[in-house]
C-alpha cells in the first residue's frame, strides 16, 4: 500500500517532539505523502449569563484565556516549520487546530476516519499514572482503527 496521508497527533510534550523527529526520518523523503499535525484543545468553559460580580470578572478574564489558546496555535505552526526544515514540502503539510468535544483518542479516531489517513503517528509514555484517569490514547486508537498503520513513538 502506497502511503499517502499521515496524521501526527501533537500535544507539545517531549515525546511529541520525538514523534516529529520520527515523522521526518521515516516519511519526509517520500514525495507522495502529506502530513497533518493535529492538536485538539479544550475550549473555554461556558460562563452562565446571569450577571454576578464573579461572572463579570470571569468574562473580562476570558480574553486572556483566549490569547493563551491562540498562542498554542502559533506554537503549532512552529511545528509545521520544523517539518518544513525536516524535508516535507510546503504543500505537503497541514495543521488542524480544533476544539475537542470528547477524549483525545476519540478525536484522533474521528479525524482518521473522516479524512482517511493511512498512517497515524502517536506517542506513548511508559508508566504514566494519568492513564488510569484519562485512559490510554494509543491503546484505544489501536483497538478501534482498522486498515490503518499506527506508529507509536515511545
Amino acid at each position, binding site marked *: 500500500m502506497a502511503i499517502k496521508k499521515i496524521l501526527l497527533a501533537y500535544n*507539545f*510534550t*517531549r515525546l511529541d517532539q520525538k514523534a516529529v523527529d520520527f515523522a521526518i526520518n521515516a516519511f519526509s523523503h517520500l514525495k507522495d505523502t502529506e502530513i497533518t499535525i493535529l492538536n485538539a484543545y*479544550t475550549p*473555554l*468553559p461556558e*460562563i*452562565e449569563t446571569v450577571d*454576578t*460580580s*464573579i*461572572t463579570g*470578572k*470571569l468574562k473580562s*478574564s*476570558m480574553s*486572556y*484565556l483566549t490569547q*493563551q489558546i491562540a498562542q498554542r496555535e502559533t*506554537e503549532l505552526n512552529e511545528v509545521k516549520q520544523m517539518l518544513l526544515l525536516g524535508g516535507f514540502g510546503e504543500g505537503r503539510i497541514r495543521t488542524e487546530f480544533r476544539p*475537542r468535544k*470528547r*477524549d*483525545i483518542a476519540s478525536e484522533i479516531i474521528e479525524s482518521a476516519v473522516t479524512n482517511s489517513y493511512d498512517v497515524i503517528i502517536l506517542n506513548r509514555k511508559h*508508566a*504514566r*499514572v*494519568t492513564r*488510569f*484517569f*484519562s*485512559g490510554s490514547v494509543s491503546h484505544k486508537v489501536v483497538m478501534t482503527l482498522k486498515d490503518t498503520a499506527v506508529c507509536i513513538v515511545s
Partner: protein
Amino acid sequence: MSVQERIDINIFKVVFRAIAHSDNLEIMADHLTQLLVAALEIKGCTIFALNPESEELEALASFGMSMSYVNKGPVLKDKSIAESSSSKPIVIRDVQKSDSLQYPEEAKKEGIGAIVSIPIKFYGKVIGALRLYHQAVWDISDEDVDSLLVLAENIGLAMTYTRVLKALRTIKYTVDDIHGLWMLETE
C-alpha cells in the same frame, strides 16, 4: 495588614458547575484550571496526579504555563517543593526568597512570583496536587487556602470516580470480547 479573600461562594458556584457539567476528567480538569486562572487573576494553574511508584507528580491538566515550563523535567512529590510534608498546603509567597524549589531557575525564568500547592487527597491519602502560580508575590489568606482545600477534596473525588469508571469499562470491554466464545461453548 489584613489579606483580602478572593474565593467566595460565587467562584465556588462557577467552578463546581464546571465540574458537574463535564463527563470527561481531562476536560473537567482543563476547565477547572482555566476558571481558577480567570477567577483568581493568577498566572497559571496545574493539576497533578501522583504516581505512587515513582513519587512523581504527573500533569493531568495545566493552563497559563509555557510548555517549556510544563515539560521542564520530572516533578517529584517531596522535592518539587521541599517542605516538611506534602500532605499539607504549602504557600511560597515569594519565589525569589525561597530555597525550597526543585526548579528555581525555571520558575524565575517563567515569571512565577508565588506558588500555592494544595494536596489532592482521597480518604486521607495524597493522590495528587493542585498548584496555583501567581506572577507576583502573593499573600493568600488562610480562608482562601481552606477554600482551595475543599476544592481539592472534590477534585480527588472526581479523579477517584473516574479511575473506578475506567476500570469498570475495561472489565466490560474484556467481557464483551470473550462473550461470543462463552456463547459458542454453551451452544
